[in-house]
């Protein structure tokens, strides 16, 4: 007969405020199998845990039920106490009488108390059937995968590489750099973005421990912490990257023109292109969709021969390429190449995308002089479409009046309810850069709130105002096109208490920060959920901000939510140290709460094989018959198989049929 001890926590007022703890204790005392029941102000405190340890040591109990708050944060603490007392740590059961009882039923003390009794009774019923379990360990592959080569991904990769671990850095663009590579200067110090980023890119490109996989995407992920098997698709570049030196001769020769993504569509690139001048690796890529197939040569065909000279007729890119990297006769596989990686941990730093201006009809998005802040960033950048000259798109004239509009698509239920966090600062920065260079340009910033929460940001704001940049509180209602390429901005100045209008030559929209395209799909591949806003969810906002619900997978940068550079870098470095822990230990504990098939009784129906979301089950031959077998390393303990098995021969340890049935029965009576 098990001897169960029940411990009911007041959690200060958190539980005791709604639940009559003493009444629950008296009730618990009489439950079958219970030999003692105690209550305490804070069970998780040292003296609280001591109660459990002493009772075990004194030989009074051999099963423990703690009725307290969420097991998510507290189960490990109580398991440790049980273990320190001298029992197997899985002989513990928790009843969550806070989140599931005192909090939601705060107003109804009587019924909250009644519910607490039920929850305790069901935990006690289960506890009677608890059995000791042993932790397992799995060996960890000492390598890591970083998804995303922006500033966050690069720092995460460098940190892990510097600790001596092998790192695969997967980036979907031809070059690392991410959005930061597009920026002109960065607040709050106004460093030139390219100048501080390029050395980092070069380090990443040359680090002996980093294997750079640019122009690549994660195809699938299997396995679990310590042993992830990742398939990465290296997209087809149609250029031999081993031979390409990044000289750009092919680019100069190519006649095809395509809107340039790197310059936010404000100028054209070629069909064969190098993403940007400081690209790492500096290699050309053929955008096959836009390739004109010059000289009537589609990729993979031999050149025609000149009727007179007998020479082969090459496409301009081929002709220009001195190294033979651009060779259109080669039959390339358009699917690219799949590389398989084995890693112990994964960091996702997939970045963000800025929202397009098109949806904002009220702001005349059809006007070339209504641009997004990212487009302005490119205009201001020396490597941008105007080589850093401030020119407005319609006629190349220098604008005399510029209006910035904040929160375009942010804090807006029709688009994104969240604050994009960086817009206030980047608007101030862009306005400042312009005003410092051209003091006579009139700049107006239409704000809802000015949010300058970071270190040294408020000083930055004050400095900008001192420069004479005008701030108006009030969301712009309309931007109308006027004759002569001018724009009329209409708003209500809350501070003046009057409607205002302004004629501007250039209107800059601070459009929202959005999750990177396909982030949700990447999340599905990794088993990580994205919140309602589409950013990946951290395990716990406060305590586990870089961890995810999948052990061994961490997040950093704007993948988790809008962030500025300092924050992204800090989070990246936090993620890399968290991701290094399993690599350093070399093995990870895997809870024994997984499923097992009684193979002798398995009928081999295969129901479980189809259902297992982690592909942990396979049918294996056993004495001439097919029987189901669960791979311990892959099983996540979800229990789907155990619930579905028609023969009832799958046991989910820690949640056996006997335990669950006892629990339900106690709840039902």
């Amino acid at each position, binding site marked *: 007969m098990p001897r169960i001890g029940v411990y009911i926590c007041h959690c200060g007022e958190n539980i005791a405020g709604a639940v009559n703890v003493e009444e629950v204790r008296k009730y618990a005392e009489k439950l079958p199998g219970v030999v003692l029941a105690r209550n305490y102000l804070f069970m998780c405190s040292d003296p609280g845990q001591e109660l459990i340890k002493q009772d075990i040591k004194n030989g009074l109990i051999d099963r423990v039920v703690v009725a307290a708050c969420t097991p998510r944060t507290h189960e490990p603490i109580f398991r440790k106490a049980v273990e320190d007392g001298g029992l197997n740590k899985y002989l513990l059961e928790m009843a969550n009488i806070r989140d599931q009882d005192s909090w939601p039923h705060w107003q109804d003390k009587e019924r909250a108390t009644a519910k607490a009794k039920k929850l305790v009774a069901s935990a006690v019923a289960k506890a009677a059937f608890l059995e000791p379990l042993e932790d397992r360990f799995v060996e960890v592959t000492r390598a890591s995968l970083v998804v995303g080569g922006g500033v966050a991904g690069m720092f995460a990769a460098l940190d892990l590489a510097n600790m001596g671990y092998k790192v695969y850095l997967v980036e979907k663009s031809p070059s690392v750099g991410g959005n930061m590579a597009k920026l002109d200067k960065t607040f709050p110090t106004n460093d030139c973005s390219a100048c501080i980023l390029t050395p980092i890119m070069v380090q990443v490109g040359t680090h002996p421990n980093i294997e750079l996989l640019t122009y690549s995407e994660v195809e699938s992920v299997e396995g679990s912490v310590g042993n992830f098997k990742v398939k990465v698709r290296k997209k087809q570049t149609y250029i031999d990257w081993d031979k390409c030196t990044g000289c750009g001769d092919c680019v100069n020769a190519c006649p095809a023109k395509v809107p340039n993504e790197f310059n936010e569509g404000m100028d054209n690139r070629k069909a064969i292109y190098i993403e940007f001048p400081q690209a790492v690796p500096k290699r050309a890529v053929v955008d096959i969709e836009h390739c004109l197939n010059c000289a009537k040569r589609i990729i993979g065909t031999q050149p025609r021969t000149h009727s007179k000279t007998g020479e082969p007729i090459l496409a301009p890119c081929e002709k220009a390429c001195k190294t033979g990297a651009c060779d259109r006769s080669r039959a390339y596989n358009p699917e690219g190449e799949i590389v398989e990686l084995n890693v112990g941990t994964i960091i996702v730093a997939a970045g963000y995308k800025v929202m397009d201006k098109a949806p904002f009809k009220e702001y005349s998005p059809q006007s070339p002089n209504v641009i997004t802040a990212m487009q302005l960033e490119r205009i201001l950048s020396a490597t941008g479409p105007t080589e850093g000259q401030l020119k407005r798109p319609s006629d190349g004239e220098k604008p005399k*009046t510029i209006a910035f509009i904040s929160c375009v698509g942010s804090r807006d239920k029709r688009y994104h309810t969240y604050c994009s966090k960086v817009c206030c600062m980047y608007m101030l920065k862009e306005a400042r850069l312009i005003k410092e260079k051209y003091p006579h340009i*009139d700049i*107006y910033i239409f704000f809802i709130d*000015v949010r300058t929460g970071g270190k040294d940001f408020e000083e930055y704001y*004050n400095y900008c*105002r*001192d420069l*004479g940049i*005008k*701030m*108006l*509180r009030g969301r712009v209602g309309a931007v109308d096109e006027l004759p002569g390429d001018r724009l009329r901005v*209409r708003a209500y*100045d809350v*501070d*003046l*208490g*009057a*409607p*205002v*209008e*302004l*004629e501007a030559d250039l209107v800059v929209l601070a459009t929202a920060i959005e999750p990177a395209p396909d982030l949700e799909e990447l999340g599905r591949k990794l088993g990580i959920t994205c919140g309602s806003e589409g950013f990946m969810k951290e395990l716990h906002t406060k305590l586990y901000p870089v961890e995810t619900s999948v052990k061994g997978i961490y997040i950093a940068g704007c993948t988790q939510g809008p962030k500025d550079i300092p924050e992204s870098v800090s989070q990246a470095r936090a993620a890399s140290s968290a991701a290094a822990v399993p690599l350093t230990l070399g093995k990870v504990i895997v809870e024994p709460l997984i499923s097992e098939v009684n193979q002798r009784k398995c009928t081999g129906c295969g129901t479980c094989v189809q259902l297992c979301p982690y592909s942990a089950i396979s049918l294996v031959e056993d004495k001439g018959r097919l029987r189901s077998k669960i791979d311990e390393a892959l099983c996540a303990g979800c229990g789907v198989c155990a619930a579905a098995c028609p023969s009832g021969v799958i046991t989910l340890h820690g949640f056996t049929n006997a335990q669950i049935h006892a629990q339900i029965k106690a709840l039902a009576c």
Partner: protein
Amino acid sequence: MSSDQVATGVINLSEGDSSLANEIKELGGEELMECIQCAKCAAACPMVLAGFPFFNKRIIQAIFLGLRDALLDDSSIWACQSCNRCTEVCPREVNPFEIIQAMRRVAIREFALPTLSIEGLKSLYDTGHAVYLAGAGNTRAKVGLPEKPPSTVANPEALKELQAVIRKTALADLGIIPMDESGVKETCEV
């Protein structure tokens, strides 16, 4: 731009005068740019309670936007009681009262001051008091006070000195009130 345009119409920011802010800074409103429009000053200001359209916070915002005409066409800036509550409460040490003073200086330069203020200035020059009522002597006598208060009113030498000082100010150059030396009055009755 008039005050009722502010109340009913649309303010055209394109017509704003960017030099106004600098002018205010030069005329005593040095801390102008420190204002973050938090409106704490407005919460303490009697002009707000009296219903004037331009009170401290709004005056400052109008200066930021260069709305010179709107401020000059409206009498609000003259309604400040100089109580200085705003200065005491402002978390940014803007000294809003000084800004209003600076705006008044701007207004005076442009002769945009109400008749009442001209009379006050004239009274100041003539008696040393911006407000000094005719017949004050009788009233004082009735309550047992000397007819003339112990100020410039009772001290023609001091008044002369004061007038000499005022003649050295910008007021004299502007010629808003007559200031001929011979016109010094011996009497305090205006």
